[in-house]
């Protein structure tokens, strides 16, 4: 291989450190062999192996060699750079070196963990080490640049997670923008009557937080709004928020309901979203009495005035404060924030997807969310659980794992169904004294006071049948089944197939990613896992971070969670955001592109290619100019530069070409 650049570096002195990672690597890769091999590579002055390079003594090996002047640049062959690159760079820097005179060879994730054949694994490890050495020889000392962080925070989603995050950040003195798609905040929790296992009133604990949000001086609450665009990067995001017209002036409306009463539709006749269609509303409505903000909203799809323009619109006259304004237009708000917390939540599984359970086919089969509303004192039935004929059910079946733990629908466990099924069993029994049959696969009750709650239900003589329900029908085989819903399931404890006639069925539907989760993740430039939940940076060590710096996750958008976990995670996400903000500045990876001015021909090929408009044309010098602060280091412009006059720090053509030579011609 050719001589590296002596002028700026002197003759390179490469230290190669091979990690055993306990036996994770050493079990498949012949470490001794790789050490022998590395010692023969050009410019290598030191080769060592160690059980755990990432441990302090491991790092100390590197630092000592550097201090002794034995090495001026380092290759560590161990795990993925995504895991420990930062660790070793820091170690090198602490020893007085430059953090970027470093390259990692990934011989664990990419070698020892995916290869059985020891010879092949060792051979591959050699190739990767040779490549890293060939490349690090050309590394240049680089400095990280840092940019100030905008202290404001954007929180997307006004469920319990978003609310908690917003209040926490606001209480820490940060300016918070809370954006909610629906006319009110509150999310799913606002729909519940009680929460498990304590059975304390959902509204009683949530609504104070909701009004706190409304009244908090540091919180700007935008409901009936959506994020329309996100630009920029960690510490400096530029966000566009689309505020849909609600045709009622938020400042003027006091939520007196006069306009609603006055509506030309004397009788409510449109399905009420908040009551999941169990009741009707008018075109102008307030979702529920504690809605925040307590402001009426007009549904353009159903309002005669908006649709036809031929309405006497008595609502307008009814409003003493002239809050109703049919000319309201959509508004785009533009804000700058330093951190973003996504708390966009979940949607419940559509039970009709499991046709054999008869949802939507037979009366008196409800989804758990519908029953939540029924049991809610403020709900459509005032808290009464009633059959369609108005009578109280005498027997109710609760079917667990509908749209969960099911290879035909969703594989995952939704984590909350067992507990809320127990809760509903309790509430229904309390209100109807009906016989309750729970059909479950396993009872999953981890969590403080959860198992105890299960015990309590057992004592309340709720029946538990272990087995997945095969079918629900109205097909009677015996007189007592006549006019009943018959639940057929195998009782796996007894080992017999049972037919249970009931009056009402509750399908405990699982949790799913929001329908538009994929669009949202693109908007914020983050990833989704296979199931569609937002992907955290690391499942254990960075559960609320994403691969996009400055964007954090809270609540069920990251995966099924119950309220305590959502709140906990919201707090964690907020803490991460605050840590970022209070640091005051973010360090940017110095892998930016740069122009070789003296040889740039000014062909301008690169300029249109930069997604961040980081490249401009200097009309005086007739050369392209890269704005290092805007450049994110993708390197597209470099690959496209026709005369090789654009390069990328840490990824120069020279470095990559040498890495290639190394990885192919390593012996």
């Amino acid at each position, binding site marked *: 291989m050719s001589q590296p650049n002596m002028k700026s570096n002197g003759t390179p002195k490469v230290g190669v450190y091979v990690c055993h990672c306990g036996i994770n690597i050493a079990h498949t890769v012949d470490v001794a062999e790789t050490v022998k091999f590395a010692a023969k590579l050009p410019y290598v002055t030191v080769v060592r192996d160690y059980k755990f390079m990432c441990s302090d003594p491991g790092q100390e090996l590197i630092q000592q060699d550097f201090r002794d002047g034995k090495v001026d640049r380092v290759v560590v062959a161990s795990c993925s750079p995504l895991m420990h690159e930062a660790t070793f760079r820091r170690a090198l820097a602490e020893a007085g070196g430059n953090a970027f005179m470093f390259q990692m060879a990934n011989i664990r994730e990419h070698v020892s963990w995916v290869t059985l054949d020891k010879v092949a694994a060792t051979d591959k490890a050699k190739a990767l080490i040779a490549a890293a050495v060939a490349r690090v020889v050309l590394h240049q000392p680089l400095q990280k640049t840092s940019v100030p962080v905008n202290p404001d925070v954007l929180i997307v989603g006004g469920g319990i997670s978003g609310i908690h995050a917003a209040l926490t950040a606001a209480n820490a003195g940060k300016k918070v923008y809370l954006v909610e798609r629906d006319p009110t905040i509150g999310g799913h929790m606002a729909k519940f009557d009680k929460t498990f296992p304590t059975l304390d009133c959902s509204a009683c604990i949530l609504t104070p937080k909701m009004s706190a949000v409304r009244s908090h001086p540091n919180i700007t609450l935008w409901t009936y709004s959506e994020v329309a665009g996100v630009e920029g990067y960690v510490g400096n995001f530029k966000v566009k928020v689309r505020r849909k017209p609600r045709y009622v002036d938020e400042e003027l409306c006091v939520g007196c309901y006069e306009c609603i009463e006055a509506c030309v539709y004397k009788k409510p006749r449109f399905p009420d979203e908040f009551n999941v269609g169990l009741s009707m509303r008018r075109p102008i409505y307030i979702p529920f009495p504690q809605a925040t903000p307590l402001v009426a909203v007009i549904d353009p799809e159903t309002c005669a005035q908006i649709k036809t323009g031929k309405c006497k619109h008595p609502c307008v006259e009814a409003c003493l404060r002239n809050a109703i304004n049919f000319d309201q237009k959509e508004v785009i708000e533009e804000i700058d924030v330093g951190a973003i917390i996504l708390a966009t939540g979940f949607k419940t599984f559509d039970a009709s997807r499991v046709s054999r359970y008869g949802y939507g086919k037979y009366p008196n089969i409800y989804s758990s969310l519908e029953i939540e509303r029924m049991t809610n004192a403020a709900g459509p039935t005032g808290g009464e659980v009633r059959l369609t004929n108005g009578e109280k059910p005498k027997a109710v079946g609760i079917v667990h794992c509908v749209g969960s733990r099911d290879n035909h629908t969703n594989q995952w466990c939704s984590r909350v169904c067992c507990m809320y099924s127990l809760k509903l069993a309790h509430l229904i029994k309390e209100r109807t004294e009906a016989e309750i049959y729970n059909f479950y696969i396993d009872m999953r009750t981890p969590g403080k006071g959860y198992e105890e709650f299960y015990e309590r239900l057992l004592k309340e003589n709720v029946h538990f049948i272990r087995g997945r329900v095969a079918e629900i029908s109205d097909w009677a085989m015996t007189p007592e089944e006549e006019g009943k819903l018959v639940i057929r399931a195998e009782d796996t404890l007894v080992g017999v197939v049972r037919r249970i006639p009931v009056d009402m069925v509750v399908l405990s539907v699982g949790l799913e990613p929001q329908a538009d989760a994929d669009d949202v993740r693109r908007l914020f430039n983050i990833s989704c896992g296979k199931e569609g939940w937002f992907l955290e940076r690391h499942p254990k060590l960075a559960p609320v971070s994403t691969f996009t710096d400055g964007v954090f996750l809270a609540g069920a958008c990251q995966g099924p969670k119950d309220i305590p976990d959502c709140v906990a995670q919201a707090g964690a996400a907020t803490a991460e955001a605050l840590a970022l903000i209070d640091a005051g500045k973010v360090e940017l990876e110095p892998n930016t592109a740069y122009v070789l001015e003296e040889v740039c*021909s000014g*062909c301008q090929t690169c300029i249109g290619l930069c997604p961040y408009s980081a490249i401009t044309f200097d009309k005086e010098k007739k050369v392209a100019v890269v704005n290092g602060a805007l450049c994110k280091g993708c390197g*597209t412009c470099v690959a496209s530069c*026709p005369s090789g006059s654009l390069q990328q720090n840490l990824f120069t053509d020279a470095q990559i070409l040498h890495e290639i030579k190394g990885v192919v011609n390593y012996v």
Partner: protein
Amino acid sequence: MSKPKVAFYWCASCGGCEEAVVDLAEDILGVVSAVDIMFWPVALDFKRHDVEAMPDGSLAVSFINGAVRSSEQHEMVEMLRKKSQAVIAFGSCAHMGGIPGLANMFGRKELLANSYFDVPSVINDQKVLPQTTFDAPEGKLTLPEMWETVKTLDQVIDVDYYLPGCPPPVKIIKEALNAILTGQLPPKGAVLAPDEALCDECPRRDTKPDKIIISKFVRPHQILMDHEKCLLAQGLVCLGPVTRKGCEGSCTKASMPCTGCMGPTSRVVDFGGKALSAIASIVDAKDEREIEAALMEVVDPVGTFYRYSLPTSLLHRRYVQTVKEGE
């Protein structure tokens, strides 16, 4: 002090490089007075054994043009290499293989068959092919054998400098001669031309739009070119951005796109690969079909991006078993 001795020599080339030297016109007299031309087949008398007799390194410089196609050419340039302190690959063919290098897309056997059997004007019922040795009634006649592969000069001998262009622009030749006469040569291996791309000196340069994004590439015969505006911006595949400057845009001045005869800058390792990358990148399409449509009129990627440089391409060509004629 005696004048430096120089030699001009040609391999498989078209003679355009010699013409280019003649195009120095009046200046050629200046050159003749500054150096002793020991060897110039096209213009002056010379003797091979004179060259053979020269002490090694007695020639200051040999200018060699043309690609290398046969062992005989190889012998000759090797001898010149021995006799010369410096060898300069003169012109695109010696530098990068040139247009004859496109022959590397095919086997020699194909070339022969096509020329002596396939073309419509040939009448050759006995399938006669030229033979390397032939017994004429009066005695044995021989023809030299062509190599399977066209090679650049530096693929057969060590080369000190390169003079790019097809042919090298007179200005570049003059500057090179001056550099040699004044002993102001760059480090070995350099191309004796500015290391910037053509756009820098193209007369159309200032007409470039801020962003060059092409919705569909077109071929020169498909549009009426604007005679001022950047040709690439007009959707023509102009390789000016990829190609070394030095010609002052002789082709773009004539409203024809640059085809890259001056070769790449020193920072590019494969002309075709880089050219392709630059051209494809500025296409304004995102899905596969749109992209293919936008690039459809680039009907001949190899001939477009390796017009003069196929023998220097990193791929070079697939390995071919050298075949004897008639086999």
